[in-house]
């Protein structure tokens, strides 16, 4: 049984995807780091906001 925080798994997922996208899209290492950081924040921020927006709705 693997017990893990859903939030931190989401952050980890966002981080991996952002790093690969940033390295694919940018050539300069500094730009890669900046893009990866921004993308991670965007992934997590959007997911967090969407999570709260969906909170009142039952499935």
């Amino acid at each position, binding site marked *: *049984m*693997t*017990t*893990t925080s*859903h939030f931190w*798994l989401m952050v*980890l*997922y966002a981080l*991996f*995807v952002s*790093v*690969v996208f940033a*390295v*694919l*899209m*940018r*050539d*300069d*290492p500094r*730009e890669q780091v900046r893009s990866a950081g921004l993308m991670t924040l965007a992934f997590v921020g959007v997911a967090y906001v969407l999570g709260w927006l969906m909170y009142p709705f039952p499935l």
Partner: protein
Amino acid sequence: MGSKSTAAERPRAGAEPGRLALVCILAWLIPGAGHLLQKRRDKGLVFLVAIPLMFAIGLWLSGRLFPLEWSDPLVFLGAIADRGVGLPYLIARLMDAGAGTVTDQSYEYGNTFLMTAGLLNFLVILDAFDIAMGRKTPGNLSERAGGTGAKAPAQR
């Protein structure tokens, strides 16, 4: 670098079918190997670490490696995505890993990590293919994406 070039003028050294096939097969088998082969060491190393690590985390989270099942299209697509990661997938199958524990709370996360690792490797393979075709020179993609890379030759 600032002058325009046509398709005929672009470097074609890596466009031989044999080399293209080698780059694509290696890039599939070992994530990042296509870039390492073409002297894109830094990018290759990032892919070599990030993609197999993501796949391993997917296995650790009790994700399932889906079978190629034609009767269920979603499972079939998941199976294609899983196989995109190459050698780590083959090793996991040899070790009988990836059976998946549906009752585990991280099961869906595991599946997502496993499939995304494979899909990201497909993108990495395409990138390695583009480099081998001479479609990518350092700087031109950053510029297209709004970055501050060096001025690139016209594409297509």
